[in-house]
């Protein structure tokens, strides 16, 4: 029993010591749990930049698209000198860059160096997997900064350096598609639209939301997705889907290139538009540039002349004024007009024609393009009707086509339109300035039952997830009663059958149009420079297209007349539309 008691005392003593041992542990534990201690950064964030949307043709080709670029960087101080060669060899293998080049970059700085800037997405993935392998191979070691005493181990890191805008169709669709400039944003290269569709749809093309993930990290910087993490999905900018087909555009561009050479012209422009919707099927120019590499000599091709350049349209205006006369019941197509054999004095002004008819019916004034006839008929419109008529057809206003920097042109003020001379000159297309697009839009009224629509290049926009948004359709406006529009159509068809536009005829299709050969004013006079145009339509049983051709300053001798340059080009355009199945000639019914 005595033994048992000392034993108990001994154990109690032992137990007390153990108790204090535990207390020491718990005390220290609470000390460490509460002490002010600098923990390593435990959170990490990742950004994946959203890209600018693409511009896509109606036949599905990417006209403009963005590619992400990545850069790889490494801190040379963290590379174990014993494993430097291993690093060089592996990086060279994964990146495809020569060893000597990497070696040179590594030697260039003692600290963070960028090994390559323009790495594409696929290679960036490879290099990222290499980065993990390098850690496992123990290539990196920790480094203590002698000044700050901060120890760190940075491996090979791959980050985004920016985006590159690519134009796979090269010169095609320019200058419509436009171009971009590069901007630096938080040390990332981004792009911004400067001209054309790139500019007009800038707010839609713009990347919408970068993906962003932030949360606690493990040792290899993988983010733990838990209740404390934040993440945002990536939303690229809208893709812009054009109503223009790349194939047709390309065919027409090739055609214009040939004809530009043939006629020694400054530029040739062609537009094909769906009469009903105003959707542009093609808007081609002979003057283009490659947006991937813009050169100094491209500068005058950068602006789409179809909407930015204004000119005196010449005889194509006659149809517009004639339709106003019809609308106001101020003319009967079968009235007989005296045209005085081609020379006529109105007030102080002498007006000439290129033909010597003595008498013409009112509609034949259009068919044979008589300035004298038109000048007299135009006097029937009073100043208000004249001015309002021009306004109704959209002159001196933007067409609101979806392109930036559109010119408005100008028409004489209402005061001046009281004068005989002004009525006369405007009636055959001088004394006012218009853009090519304004003329096309006005002529479309004749081909669309008197209703005016807004031309547009874009059919819809879409997100990467497939969500489509149709563009809001513009308000249609009735400019002419349907009867007047039909009458004008007939007169324009007659012009092609019997008048100045005979070379535009295409069997089996309903073709109409009006020529214009306008002197270009320079230094107060009119030199031997012309803008020759033919604006009209080509319809089959199902589709109606309004088409315009403008040949600017053809220098080829004797070929400055629209009937000899713009009209044949118009026919070639129609032929391409037939070839491509946009129009189907109906050879059975009579036209």
């Amino acid at each position, binding site marked *: 029993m005595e033994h048992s008691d000392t034993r108990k005392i001994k154990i109690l003593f032992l137990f007390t010591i153990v108790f204090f041992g*535990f207390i*020491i542990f718990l005390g220290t*534990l*609470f000390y*460490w*749990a509460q002490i002010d201690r600098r923990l390593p950064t435990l959170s990490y964030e990742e950004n994946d930049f959203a890209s600018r949307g693409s511009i896509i043709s109606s036949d599905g080709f990417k006209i403009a698209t963005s590619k992400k670029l990545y850069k790889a960087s490494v801190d040379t101080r963290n590379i174990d000198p014993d494993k430097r060669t291993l690093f060089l060899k592996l990086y060279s293998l994964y990146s495809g860059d020569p060893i000597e080049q990497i070696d040179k970059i590594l030697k260039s700085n003692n600290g963070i160096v960028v090994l390559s800037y323009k790495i594409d997405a696929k290679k960036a993935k490879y290099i990222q997997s290499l980065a993990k392998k390098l850690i496992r191979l123990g290539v990196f070691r920790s480094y203590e900064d002698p000044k700050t005493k901060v120890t760190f181990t940075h491996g090979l890191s791959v980050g985004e350096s920016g985006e590159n805008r690519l134009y796979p169709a090269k010169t095609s669709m320019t200058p419509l598609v436009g171009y971009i400039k590069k901007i630096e944003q938080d040390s990332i290269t981004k792009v911004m639209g400067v001209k054309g569709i790139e500019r007009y749809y800038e707010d839609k093309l713009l990347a919408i939301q970068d993906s962003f993930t932030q949360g606690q*990290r*493990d040792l290899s910087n993988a983010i733990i997705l838990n209740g404390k993490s934040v993440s945002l999905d990536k939303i690229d900018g809208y893709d812009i889907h054009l109503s223009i087909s790349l194939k047709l555009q390309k065919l027409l561009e090739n055609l214009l290139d040939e004809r530009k050479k043939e006629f020694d012209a400054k530029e040739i422009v062609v537009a094909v538009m769906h009469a009903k919707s105003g959707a542009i099927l093609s808007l081609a120019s002979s003057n283009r540039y490659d947006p991937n590499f813009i050169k100094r000599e491209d500068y005058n091709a950068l602006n789409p002349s179809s909407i930015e350049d204004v000119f005196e349209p010449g005889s194509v205006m006659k149809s517009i004024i004639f339709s106003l006369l019809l609308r106001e019941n101020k003319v009967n197509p079968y009235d007989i007009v005296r045209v005085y054999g081609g020379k006529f004095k109105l007030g102080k002004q002498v007006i000439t024609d290129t033909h010597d008819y003595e008498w013409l019916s009112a509609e034949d004034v259009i068919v044979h393009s008589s300035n004298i006839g038109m000048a007299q008929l135009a006097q029937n419109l009073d100043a208000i009707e004249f001015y309002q008529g021009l306004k109704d057809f959209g002159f001196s206003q933007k067409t609101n086509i979806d392109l930036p920097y559109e010119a408005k042109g100008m028409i004489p003020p209402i005061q001046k339109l009281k004068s005989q001379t002004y009525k006369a000159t405007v009636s055959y297309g001088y004394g006012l300035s218009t853009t090519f697009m304004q003329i096309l839009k006005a002529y479309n009224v004749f081909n669309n039952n008197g209703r005016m629509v807004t031309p547009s290049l874009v059919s819809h926009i879409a997100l990467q997830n497939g969500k489509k948004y149709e563009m809001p359709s513009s308000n249609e406006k009735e400019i002419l009663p349907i009867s007047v529009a039909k009458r004008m159509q007939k007169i324009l068809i007659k012009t092609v059958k019997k008048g100045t536009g005979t070379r535009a005829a295409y069997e089996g299709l309903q073709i109409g149009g009006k020529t214009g050969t306008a002197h270009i004013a320079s230094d107060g006079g009119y030199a031997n420079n012309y803008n020759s145009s033919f604006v009209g339509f080509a319809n089959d049983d199902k589709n109606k297209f309004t088409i315009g051709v403008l040949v600017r300053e053809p220098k080829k001798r004797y070929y400055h007349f629209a009937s000899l340059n713009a009209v044949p080009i118009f026919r070639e355009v129609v032929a391409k539309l037939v070839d491509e199945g946009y129009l189907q000639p109906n050879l059975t019914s009579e036209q």
Partner: protein
Amino acid sequence: MATDKTLFILSTFCIFVGIVFSLSLPVFTTLYFNYNEWHFFVRQFTVGMVGIFLMWSLSRLNPDRHLSFLGLGIFFLCLFLMGIMHFLPESLVTSAGGAKRWIRLPGFSFAPVEFFKIGFVYFLAWSFARKLDESKKTLKEEIKLIVPYVGVFLIVIYLIAVLQNDLGQVVVLALTLAVMIFFAGTSVKLFVISVSSAIVIFIIAIITSDHRMLRIKTWWATIQDMVLSLFPTQIAHALRVENAPEPYQISHSLNAIRHGGLFGEGLGGGIFKLGYLSEVHTDFVLAGIAEEIGAIGVTFLTCIIFLIIYRIFRISSRSSNRVFYLFSLGMGLLIVFSFLMNAYGITSITPIKGIAVPFLSYGGSSLLALCFGMGMVLMISKRAKL
């Protein structure tokens, strides 16, 4: 007289806590090695269940008839295995850094040293009970009596510290041995002499090795702020070491404790287990647990362990059989020393020495061996006057 059910329930509770953390803590390891996410959990769960069953089965045996056979059996078997282990072919032993610690069997491998500890404690209890008593002896007589044990222990040092390079286990065994000798009936004088000579050997061992010196220095650098705050400024200044780096593992262990704070980040919410603390499910399990359930949670678990120790000591003090008394005391000491050595290590009170936390660390051999020992203590508890 009945089995100590409380002890059984407390032990089982701790085993379950260990199983829960075997799922939570090694997530990074499972990803890193491409293991199934249940890899560690399934193993710990299985071993835990087997262990609990083992405790229960052993507790039902009659200590007077079976204890001796089991205790000495396991002692000699493990001694034999550790002896031949070094000569076994590579296909049968798993080595880590040149140290052969595990014997590979079909489906699993086990570390004999864990079972050996139980056997060793039983062997000492059995032998002390016969050779030592509480009667007065001269110091010379006492030394004469314990010399054979020192001899046995030198063999143990050779087998474990030299061949298996596992100094932590030897330290635990040495401490247990010292306290058991004292409790077996030797004088305080002998105890003091042996403890002081151990300290001298310890200091010589440190001073003679640069590598050990560095470890002490880095340990001191970590702990000095806490300790020196208790001293007057001048002494503190003299003792301060500047610019010694904090060892990586300790640094993250303390980070984890700090990050957990008082209440923890929540079960499964630990961050330092994600690659920072590489041995988080074994040697640093307490740091990992501290981050998830906080200092308060760890205090609760510590109390449970403390209660277990209390129950074992109670059984020890109330056993009339000297073998039973010494054996359960030894078992209690094994748990105390393992737990404190680990706990002091992760809080940097002492330099770190890898050793498993009883019940909580992941690892089949240590848990199963512990259950075996606990089963024997439970068996004894039936003979104690509780």
